[in-house]
């Protein structure tokens, strides 16, 4: 793609999200969402292919519907409160509509169907932007309207997401689809704690973005998109096998890695609100996620995946692909647990 066009698109993408996050007027928030979507679609079509076209179309349809629903919620809120300020919503219908709209934007179940297919159709870097940056804007609006969200709707969607994210990823070999289902499950965890303590949503988002960023950077290093090609990394860049294993275990929520921190904090917060069955259920369902991360770990780091003999004798070139911020991201996504008291900075 023409570099100047690409710069304009990236700038619009960033500007759109920034507008959503920083605005106090609902119209500007909606404009921000639309700018974000408009800019992201050409980025998804960077390398044109039927798969990319399909992914872009699905993304457009779902996000445009969600924006329209968002606008409807804003108008109903305007009708009942007479003002456009972004605070908690003043009408249950508006609140339900807006929650559903933002759930479609985030990819929460039962509106999750677009996430795996869109993530699969786009290149790895674009997939990284889809699963990390595009979550910031909807979650910031959810954070701001959190006092008025219908509790049962939110909890149903989030529990369903954790289940779908766990079970959906079990039969996948394509890494981008695995990351998509992992994103659905993590969004489920994030929105579970939203009605109770939105700070923990932000903490979970931060740790999730770091871990997903790390995973995608490790995949981009070797341009791997399938489990089969990931299993060849021992031959190309052996250190990536260890790093992939550590990050995957962290995503699965195993102590003492930092992926345990959001889960622990969420369970603590839910327990303080006298809810005990739900965190137990959520924690056990997260083990489904751990199963397919373990499968990836096995094929990458712990065993020698079956392969043809000439795959075992590749030339080891010095790497030319740069992985920006990878060491920092790896340290944050695996070693942050002792710094848990630091999360008070998010308050």
């Amino acid at each position, binding site marked *: 793609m023409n570099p100047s066009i690409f710069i304009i698109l990236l700038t619009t993408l960033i500007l759109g999200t920034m507008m959503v996050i920083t605005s106090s007027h609902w119209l500007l928030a909606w404009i921000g969402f639309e700018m974000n979507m408009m800019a992201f679609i050409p980025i998804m079509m960077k390398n044109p292919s039927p798969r990319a076209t399909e992914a872009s179309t699905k993304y457009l349809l779902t996000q445009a519907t969600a924006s329209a629903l968002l606008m409807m919620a804003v108008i109903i809120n305007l009708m009942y409160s007479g003002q456009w300020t972004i605070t908690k919503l003043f009408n249950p219908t508006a609140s339900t509509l807006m929650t559903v709209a933002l759930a479609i934007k985030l990819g929460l179940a039962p509106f999750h169907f677009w996430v795996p297919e869109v993530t699969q159709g786009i290149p790895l870097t674009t997939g990284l932007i889809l699963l990390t940056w595009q979550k910031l804007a909807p979650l910031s609006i959810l954070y701001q309207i959190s006092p008025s969200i219908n509790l049962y709707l939110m909890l149903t969607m989030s529990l369903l997401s954790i289940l779908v994210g766990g079970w959906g990823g079990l039969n996948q070999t394509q890494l981008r689809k695995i990351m998509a289902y992992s994103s659905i499950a993590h969004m489920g965890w994030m929105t579970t704690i939203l009605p109770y303590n939105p700070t923990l949503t932000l903490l979970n988002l931060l740790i999730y973005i770091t871990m997903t960023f790390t995973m995608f950077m490790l995949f981009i290093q070797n341009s791997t998109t399938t489990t089969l090609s990931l299993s060849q990394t021992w031959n190309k860049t052996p250190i990536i096998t260890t790093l992939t294993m550590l990050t995957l275990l962290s995503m699965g929520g195993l*102590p003492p890695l930092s992926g345990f921190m959001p889960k622990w904090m969420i*369970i*603590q917060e839910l327990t303080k609100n006298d809810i*005990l069955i739900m965190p137990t259920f959520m924690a056990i369902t997260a*083990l489904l996620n*751990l*199963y397919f991360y373990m499968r990836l770990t096995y094929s990458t780091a*712990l*065993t020698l995946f079956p392969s043809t003999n000439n795959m075992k004798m590749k030339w080891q070139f010095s790497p030319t692909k740069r992985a920006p911020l990878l060491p920092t991201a790896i340290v944050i996504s695996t070693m942050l647990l002792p710094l848990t008291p630091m999360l008070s900075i998010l308050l």
Partner: protein
Amino acid sequence: MLKFIIPTIMLMPLTWLSKNNLIWINSTAHSLLISFSSLLLLNQLNDNSLNYSLIFFSDPLSTPLLMLTMWLLPLMLMASQSHLIKEPPVRKKLYITMLIMLQALLIMTFTATELILFYIMFEATLIPTLIIITRWGNQTERLNAGLYFLFYTLIGSLPLLVALVYLQNTTGSLNFLLLQHWAKPLSASWSNIFMWLACMMAFLVKMPLYGLHLWLPKAHVEAPIAGSMVLAAVLLKLGGYGMLRITSMLNPLTEHMAYPFLMLSLWGMIMTSSICLRQTDLKSLIAYSSVSHMALVIAAILIQTPWSYMGATALMIAHGLTSSMLFCLANSNYERIHSRTMILARGLQVLLPLMATWWLLASLTNLALPPTINLVGELLVVMSVFSWSNPTILLMGANIVITALYTLYMLIMTQRGKHTHHINNIIPSFTREHALMALHIIPLLLLSLNPKIILGPLY
């Protein structure tokens, strides 16, 4: 406690920066020094625990387990030398690093004051063990073994996390030293029942209890020797240690809730001992014998009498050393004939006489011969369970007999009789192997002179 943790962590740079021909010597020698320094912990106060800091403490229950853990690291390193000979130096160093990391995490687990720190370290020990089993095991079944190990333990321990957080909210602190005095009695409501289950299931899976023991034969058999040693000797005792700590807060509900698990332990120890009589795989036999011994420990902890707690602690230490020694002996067989089938290498007494002495001593301690500490533990447990309910003496007595049966079966099958012809040219025993066995059995025999150390806080 940092005087143990920091040297253990520093063993890692020692391994990575040593010259290639010195990695084993350096790590074994320095870990042996650290294990000698653990004897400092024996300086216990009478009615109180040694409180080193807000985070770490040691009391007469954790001291013998700590000493066992720190004693085991040099032994594990000595045992692993042979099967890692052909690996490139980086992988040898990685293996040693996994063992050292496991050691550091175990030290922190046994000395943690705050129960959440205990939980985090408890879970953290899973990762190096998983890597050791899956990466360095020998057969394809090791993948399944690793998954079973990880998921059985995690499904048990996630409710424990919720229960611990709930306990912190209700009692205000999870510092174990405070909780001992602050714990409120639990009435028999449904939510308390679930909390009891949530607290105990993690440790019952780890011990393992008879119905949840499926991961253990897989993990023990597929692990390399160091993995088997640490699993049998220490990781199982983590479950026992956790149960001993957490039952002080679950009274008096334990009297009602313990029944199903007592039934499972009593029946399970007979079942697993009987299975040992029909095993063809040597390591599998030792693994099932571990389940049987641990069932005794579970029964002892669940009836909560002073004698039974003393018996449980003594039995944990005794079984740790014995089981580890049996795995080392089985491994010495495996390294020679590369098979775990018992009947393939028979009549070894003629070919390897000194090793036969170690086989005899290990078998004698396994069947709880007086005056070893194995007997002290088993006797205390049998007597206290008898006082809890008289008819259990039938099951316990049957278990002791069947234990003797399968231990002697194992001894006679491998050592006595006519030797098979194809093992005429096995390599004679290495001095390293003799040292390994001696270092296992000498503490065991010396402890029978003064079992007071291992009888736990209620002595």
